[in-house]
């Protein structure tokens, strides 16, 4: 439907079928017109040409298609933003491909240059489309529905009848009726022109503007966001400042001075698991009981945080991410002095049954004769040990049914004094020596309460108990509200643009040759809809009391009201092309005159 309809009404028969509707069919939508012209030479001409191309529907379609294709690799190739470990793994496995992918930005597709180029072009195209359409739409709202085309019979839905009422009365009644049905209606010559369903175009524009709003919200969110992780053992807490985070990421414009003061303490972590059946071991509940405060001297509140229920606190949100176990140990050095006492978080290596690994670093330990002897322990913790017979340190169940801690011990220099940051979950063994007993590394499986003695009287480590830990993600993401508003607006706009029909109705009443008023009604919609003829029928029926039917002299008594007599003439034109045969006659006034055609249209009847 992209005929160039901005030309003034042109009743010439040689024009394409849309043009005989003249202005009537114009601007039923503000969809852009397709341009096929070649650009004139010169830079301005080229810029204009480029702009027209970019804002054309065809290019927009192409960009949309490219966007969906461009999104695919990001779902199949590991992404740095989601799982950096996997990316490294991939690069190690496929060296050549990894390099190529790296150059193409395949490991960060959604922030890559080419992906950004696609969506930015798409949004520029969108803006280039929306702005003129909005102006046009405003113009349409301020203007009036276009007048009736000369030949109403050409329209997709048409009806006519003859009546005793005067044309003026009929038109007045038609205008009242259409206004009552919330059409915008006005008189134009011997016809009433009416239009309804402007919300379709409004919805369309709202939808596209909302897409831009969502993009802006997304950009705001990623530029000003902050996101950090924190592992907290039961009894410990967190306060919102940069140094407290285990890891921290923020957008380009995030300012650490704007961090709101708040904090929380993990009182208790609860987890339950499926005890039987095929899904044995599947988690059923995770619940972290927190005490939190906001502000420097805020009051304390208690709340439980679960996987789907984050804690909303001072513009940030605290999410429960994962959990694990922290064995409590007491380490005594060679002097018998307690040099370490506390819970050490072990990290799960097996997410299902929580076989965990971890290290204990004791920098302050000394030998019995007072020499510096830093101690390091490394080992496994299993919440449910398989029993001596199983021979492996793999947990059988994620709950604490049979907790066992296995450690080996090292001594020497932990390397923590160098000032370089060190992973707290790994031992740097460069200057460490493993304790050995008769040539074999010292290792012991401990149940809670048990102790492992170090050789040479260097001390001991006691496994005193187990605490839970939970890791939290603390995010601050502005623009969420805007994104939600955009999404809701997009949805409403979309519904409006897809479910509302925009249509025009014309009612013409003119005295016929025999002095009897001929009423013609026709409807035109943006798309072919079965509702349009139905609505026209309803309107005609509603108008009838004011324009009572007069039987047509020319037709049989069994079908006195048929409109076919008016329709057969123009209808017999072949539709796709302008009729060569009818060409000479098409200058006739559009007014139907009675002909002897029988009521044929009913033959095509509904199936």
């Amino acid at each position, binding site marked *: 439907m992209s005929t160039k309809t901005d030309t003034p009404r042109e009743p010439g028969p040689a024009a394409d079928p849309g043009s005989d509707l003249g202005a009537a069919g114009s601007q039923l939508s503000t969809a852009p017109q397709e341009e096929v012209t070649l650009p004139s030479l010169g830079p301005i001409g080229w810029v204009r040409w480029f702009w027209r191309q970019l804002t054309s529907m065809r290019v927009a379609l192409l960009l*949309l298609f490219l966007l969906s294709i461009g999104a695919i690799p990001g779902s199949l190739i590991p992404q740095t933003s989601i799982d950096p470990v996997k990316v490294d793994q991939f690069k190690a496995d496929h060296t050549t491909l990894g390099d190529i992918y790296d150059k193409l930005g395949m490991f960060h597709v959604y922030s890559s240059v080419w992906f950004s180029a696609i969506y930015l072009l798409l949004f520029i195209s969108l803006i280039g489309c929306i702005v003129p359409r909005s102006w046009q739409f405003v113009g349409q709202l301020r203007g009036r529905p276009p007048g009736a085309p000369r030949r109403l019979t050409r329209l997709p839905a048409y009806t006519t009848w003859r009546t005793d009422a005067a044309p003026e009365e009929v038109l007045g009644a038609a205008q009242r009726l259409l206004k009552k049905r919330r059409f915008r209606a006005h008189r134009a010559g011997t016809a009433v022109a009416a239009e309804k369903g402007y919300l379709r175009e409004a919805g369309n524009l709202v939808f596209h503007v909302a897409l831009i709003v969502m993009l802006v919200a*997304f950009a705001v969110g990623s530029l000003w966001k902050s996101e950090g992780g924190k592992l907290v053992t039961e009894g410990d807490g967190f306060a919102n400042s940069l140094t407290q985070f285990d890891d921290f990421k923020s957008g380009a414009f995030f300012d650490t001075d704007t961090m709101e003061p708040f904090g929380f303490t993990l009182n208790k972590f609860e987890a339950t698991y499926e005890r039987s059946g095929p899904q044995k071991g599947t988690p059923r509940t995770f619940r972290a009981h927190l005490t939190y405060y906001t502000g420097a001297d805020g009051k304390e509140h208690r709340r439980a945080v679960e996987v789907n229920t984050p804690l909303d606190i001072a513009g940030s949100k605290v999410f429960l991410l994962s959990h694990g176990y922290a064995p409590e140990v007491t380490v005594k050095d060679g002097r018998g002095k307690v040099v370490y006492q506390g819970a050490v978080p072990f990290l799960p290596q097996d997410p299902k049954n929580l076989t965990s690994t971890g290290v204990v670093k004791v920098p302050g330990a000394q030998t019995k004769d007072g020499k510096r002897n830093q101690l390091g322990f490394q080992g496994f913790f299993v919440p449910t040990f398989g029993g001596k017979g199983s021979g492996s340190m793999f947990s059988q169940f994620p709950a604490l049914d049979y907790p066992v801690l296995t450690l080996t011990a090292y001594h020497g220099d932990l390397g923590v004094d160098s000032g370089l940051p060190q992973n707290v979950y790994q031992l740097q063994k460069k200057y460490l020596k493993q304790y050995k007993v008769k040539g074999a590394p010292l290792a012991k499986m401990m149940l809670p309460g048990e102790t492992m003695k170090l050789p040479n009287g260097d001390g001991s480590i006691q496994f005193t108990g187990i605490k839970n830990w939970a890791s939290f993600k603390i995010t601050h993401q502005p623009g969420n509200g805007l994104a939600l508003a955009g999404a809701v607006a997009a949805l409403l706009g979309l519904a409006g643009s897809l479910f509302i029909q925009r249509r025009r109705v014309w009612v013409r009443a003119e005295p016929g040759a025999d002095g009897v008023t001929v009423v013609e009604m026709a409807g035109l919609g943006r798309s072919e809809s079965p509702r349009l003829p139905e609505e026209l029928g309803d309107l005609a*029926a509603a108008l009838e009391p004011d324009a009572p039917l007069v039987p047509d002299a020319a037709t049989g008594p069994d079908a006195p*009201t048929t409109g076919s007599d008016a329709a057969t003439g123009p*209808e017999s034109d072949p539709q796709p092309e302008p009729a060569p045969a009818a060409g000479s006659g098409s200058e006739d006034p559009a007014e139907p005159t009675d002909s002897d055609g029988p009521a044929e249209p009913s033959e*095509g009847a509904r*199936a």
Partner: protein
Amino acid sequence: MNIAAAANETLAHNSNLLVYSAMAVYTLAFVAHMSEWVFGSRSKVARTAAALTSQATAPATASAKVAQQGGGTAVLERPKVITKSAAGSRDVPDGPGAAGGTEKGDLYGRIAISLTVLAWGLHVGGVITRALSVQRAPWGNMYEFSTTFAAVAVGIYLLLLTLRKNVRWIGLPLVTTVLLDLGLAVSVLYTASDQLVPALHSYWLWIHVSCAILSGAVLYLGAVATLLFLFRDRYEAKLADPAGKQPGAFATSVLERLPSAASLDKFAYRVNATVFPLWTFTIIAGAIWAEAAWGRYWGWDPKEVWAFITWVGYACYLHARSTAGWKGRKAAWLGLIAFACYLFNYYGVNIFVTGLHSYAGV
């Protein structure tokens, strides 16, 4: 807890029995549909060909239709509305349906629908007992999603039938795919009835997943219509060009009984356009849930990416359909690609790609 679990297992067992019974009855319906098509092939209607050849001489009669009005004398009292199709369309009447106007074919068709209704009742029973056995929405894993999906698709088909829409032609492809879907569900995807992992404990499960299922089922019907449109359109194009290659006997026999290409296209468009806002809402609801569960509303998780690709695919389809040079077959292909994306998002992403949505153990 244990007593409850025992009762649950009985219900879950019953649910499986119901699903298996439904499959048996669907198979019978499939056979009945096949009989309908076979018996219908005996009538040599060739309406489409007739319409297309007659169109060259008398297009007016074919193009004129009278809108349905109230019955009885009201028809005489009311002016008739004459409709006219857009220029360029073929104006071919719809085919007579699978039964091809034969009485025997029609009888089998009716039997097939009755069996489908019965199977659907069993099927829905299976889904509900499954839900009761776990006391939650029955959409926690792929088995449950697949069974519910098929039930919703058949439900929409039956709803359209009761609304007296011309959708009987979809019966055979629908029953076939439902059997495939349920077969996959009970054999490959089966997961014993169980509770949900904590990440799925949210009322958004009800909203997000139910919308995903409903959109998918409707989009499925649209995709079937689009596929048939492509066949039927080529068939009509061949007929319209008597000089060119003519369709074979089998193709003619099957395709002439389908609705016209224009009707299929219109049906597909209406279905897709109606459900597109719902699919949009599904994604938005998912984003809101993701915000609550994972701290960000959009994180380019594979499931999110493919939902987005599907969305863009359907957006392409809707735009293409109103763009000159793209409407018709090209738009139809876009529609099919978009539905393929939906399918990949379901089977492909859940099975082959690891992401945040893959915690239900298939």
